């Protein structure tokens, strides 16, 4: 991944001028074709962006084809209150997952801490016209003038995007839902909370099957929690879940109905020389993703991102340092709670590049072939549409170059936690607090 070929070019950034807590983006997800991009925020809203097709973008002035524009916005979750436990249930959208295309409409699952909802996003361009008892303005007609029956006729109108809740999967989780994942069979999905994983049928809302339960009989014996879970992209019976202890467990649903016994456990032996008070916290896996091929797993812990081969359980095949320079600052990161940040990680479309987030509006990409990594910055001050993104460097010693940032001047409030990679092209979506940045590879634009 040379800097020339991969320096993405700023294509569009969705910027807002004010920052409120509710505007902070909490999840980003492309659909299967990459034509739609959905974001969820802490205010319970979902915003869907649609990629302009070639025919619509009339010319360069109007906007480059391939640009993403707002398609629909809707309120997915509302703040709620659990009266039995006296707990507030936040409306924050934890995850969004698109369903495989089934007809002209699009379907997505969105979840907050407790309730998963299935939404239907559809277009309509026709509207019925003609009433018997009132005119089009809604005024009631005199009954004596109604002498014949009129059947409404559908007339074309402006395109409207309708979003409707299709199903609500409630009461399945006692703890906070952290992941949802749609199965390759297209009729089931899983949802994971801190201690349990449930499997749902997309058509059935009143029951789900518990497939993993790690809740100990006595909560004082609790030593680890589930942090993320995902289905295998092709094999409907395989899923993986990660834990706060840094382990990955692969389960085979063919073996038994309850998958408490994993079929494979992926774990890296701890280096005794490196052990410290923070070892366990920083080894907690915050995200796990299957590669598109289904052969590899990508995990993120606090300081590194790792690639695992499904055929090798004893350790990762590749490990990349995301921000090793923070190792000396763990104490202060613990004090300001940053050490518990949950960074996501993603694969590119060909599984050759991986990407994950960091602090100071930085995010990192690693080329798996050469092992090289770049640091890029998503920050509105130095990014104008269609500008080429500069690589950045954190100064950690040695000769200091112009533009390098010192470790001490990193801004820990500007974190990049959520991101997504287009399923086929080099387009990435980065959520930086309340801003969404969409970057497109310059090479692929020029080739179009």
């Amino acid at each position, binding site marked *: 991944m040379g800097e020339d070929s991969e320096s993405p070019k700023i294509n569009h950034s969705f910027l807002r001028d004010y920052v409120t807590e509710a505007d902070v983006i909490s999840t980003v997800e492309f659909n299967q074709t990459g034509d739609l991009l959905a974001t969820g925020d802490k205010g319970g809203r979902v915003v869907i962006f649609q990629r302009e097709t070639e025919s619509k973008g009339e010319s360069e002035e109007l906007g480059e084809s391939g640009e993403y524009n707002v398609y629909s916005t809707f309120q997915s979750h509302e703040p709620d209150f659990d009266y039995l436990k006296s707990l507030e249930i936040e409306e924050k959208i934890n995850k969004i997952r698109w369903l*495989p*295309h*089934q*007809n*002209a*409409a699009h*379907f997505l699952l969105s979840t907050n801490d407790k309730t998963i909802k299935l939404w*239907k996003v*559809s277009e*309509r361009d*026709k509207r*019925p016209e003609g*009433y*018997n*008892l*009132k005119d089009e303005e809604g005024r009631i007609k005199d*009954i*004596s003038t*109604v*002498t*014949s*029956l*009129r*059947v*409404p*006729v*559908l007339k074309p109108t402006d395109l409207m995007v*309708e979003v409707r809740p*299709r199903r609500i999967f409630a009461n399945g989780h006692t703890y906070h839902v952290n992941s949802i994942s749609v199965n*390759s*069979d*297209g*009729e089931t999905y899983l949802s994971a909370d801190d201690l349990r994983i449930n499997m749902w049928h997309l*058509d059935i809302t009143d029951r789900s099957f518990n497939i993993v339960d790690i809740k100990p009989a006595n909560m004082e014996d609790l030593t680890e929690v589930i942090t993320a879970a995902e289905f295998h992209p*092709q*094999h*409907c*019976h395989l899923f993986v879940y990660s834990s706060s202890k840094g382990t990955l467990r692969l389960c085979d*649903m*063919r*073996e*038994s*109905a309850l998958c408490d016994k994993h079929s494979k456990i992926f774990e890296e032996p701890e280096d005794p020389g490196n052990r410290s008070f923070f070892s366990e916290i920083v080894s907690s896996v915050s995200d796990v993703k299957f590669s598109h091929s289904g052969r590899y797993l990508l995990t993120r812990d606090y300081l590194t991102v790792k690639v695992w081969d499904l055929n090798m359980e004893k350790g990762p095949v590749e490990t990349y340092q995301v921000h090793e320079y923070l190792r000396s600052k763990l104490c202060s990161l613990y004090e300001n709670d940053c050490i518990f940040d949950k960074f996501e990680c993603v694969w590119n479309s060909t599984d050759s590049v991986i990407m994950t987030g960091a602090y100071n509006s930085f995010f990192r990409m690693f080329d798996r072939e050469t092992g090289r990594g770049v640091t890029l910055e998503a920050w509105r001050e130095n990014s104008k549409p269609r500008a080429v993104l500069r690589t950045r460097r954190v100064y950690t010693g040695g000769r200091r170059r112009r533009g390098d940032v010192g470790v001490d001047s990193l801004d820990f409030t500007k974190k990049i936690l959520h991101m997504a990679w287009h399923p086929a092209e080099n387009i990435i979506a980065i959520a930086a607090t309340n801003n969404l940045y969409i970057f497109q590879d310059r090479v692929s634009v020029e080739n179009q």
Partner: protein
Amino acid sequence: MAGAEGDDSLYPIAVLIDELRNEDVQLRLNSIKKLSTIALALGVERTRTELLPFLTDTIYDEDEVLLALAEQLGSFTVLVGGPEFVHCLLPPLESLATVEETVVRDKAVESLRKISQEHSPVDLEVHFVPLVKRLASGDWFTSRTSACGLFGVCYPRVSIMTHTFESTLITAVMHFRTLCSDDTPMVRRAASSKLGEFAKVLELDYVKSDIIPLFTALASDEQDSVRLLAVEAGVSIAALLPQEDLEDLVMPTLRQAAEDKSWRVRYMVADKFSELQKAVGPEITKNDLVPAFQNLLKDCEAEVRTAAANKVKVFCESLPEDSRETIIMTHILPCVKELVSDTNQHVKSALASVIMGLSTILGKDNTVEHLLPLFLVQLKDEYPEVRLNIISNLDCVNEVIGIRQLSQSLLPAIVELAEDAKWRVRLAIIEYMPLLAGQLGVEFFDEKLNSLCMAWLIDHVYAIREAATCNLMKLVEKFGAEWAQNTIVPKVLGMANDSNYLHRMTTLFCINALSEVCGQEITTKHMLPVVLKMSTDQVANVRFNVARCLQKIGPVLDSSALQAEVKPVLEKLATDQDMDVKYFALEAISGMYLFNLPTYIFSETFSFSSILFFFFSFSLSP
């Protein structure tokens, strides 16, 4: 004024049509449900040219509206002008067959299948077959899944009538083959579940040459959900084939399914086992299915064992008679013995619900020797559900070995269940009491179970006390009023002096239940004095229940007792300080139409009924 009259009759229809697009779903649904009325008013011509095109495009609606629409269209043939024009119904149903909601799609397919019968062979070929082809090659999987359900109905009729028989059939098979190897698992699932049905309408040669390869492919699909549906198809196909072909064509695949890596597929085999057994006949059952069934009973997944355990009785019953007993004794019973001490409660409970049925098949001697020990183990099982299942199936063993022998070992288990800490278990046992009592007889009951029935009356859970009173009523129905007077009534009435007001109320509830079955004499002589005495109880809840009780037993009493004894008490209660007591006393009085009441009490009720009367007369007038 002919014109005005015309408007009047148009008005309701106009409202219905307008409400087809009302914002309120309920009103839209209402209108759709009366679609036939609208169509009738519009006439066949306008229904075809205006209403149906409108409906074809209204697929944006809520599922329940679409579901109602899909259903209506299935019986619309007459309204569009009879079989000649039935093809007009295809476009709206076609668009309904592509929506994402499975129930709507299924209903649309059902309606399409229904109206396919009303097509003439020519129309079928000109209109219906192209529709199926269109759906089968649609862009979205929803339309392709719908297509899977339509091959079975349209081809048999096309093929017989037209000269293009061969080619139509071949294209049908070709389309179905494409669907069976579709990219999306949803379509393969639909194809898999309709394969058996499609096979039924084909000639045997086609089944052998075309369907079998499809079945084999689906049964080894990479998706569990496709493979498990293929099991069912396999059963239907097996039923079609002659005995000599089964071994070569179907059995290898079915054997493989019974040993599939995925427990869900094995579960499906276990679940369909009796159908499978019927389809393959006695020889293959003996050689193949018996070992397969043994394996399923020993499966490592509890869900599979549960499904298999459920089939034990049916499987054994349908074994060929000549070798039935040997097979059960040597092959099945050892597995059953293991299941009795299974680690999973659902397995044991499934077994408990069928195991008693084996006794009729094996006869008295085998039952006493082999099965009885198993029953006893299950009766002492730690899970109440298991014990309960045994008790609720006692009647089949009763027929074989007699209740005496059983009850010796049975009774301790029942007593234990009757005192179970879970009230739902106690409740379930109470429900079996009348049945048991009938089987055991009066003497045995008095000796062993009567005290239990009485103990439930003072249970601390209301549901149990309520069920216990109901139980007493059923017992009296069985054993008669005399028995009641000697055994039950004294104990019930004794509770009227209990210090706990809940127990005193139970007396009243029992009297409510018993008065009718016990008859006038016992009620007037024994029960009434106690009830009347309780009218001075210090707890208001008891007092108003006295009022309710008096109302309830009123019809059983003779009129002299009513006038002389009940009336003064109720009148006194009607002046009680407590609101509720007063209310129920007045209700009892009005319920019995006993007395001439002061009008002010009735004034409100009276005016209300007069309003009702007006209302009725108003709506009845033309």
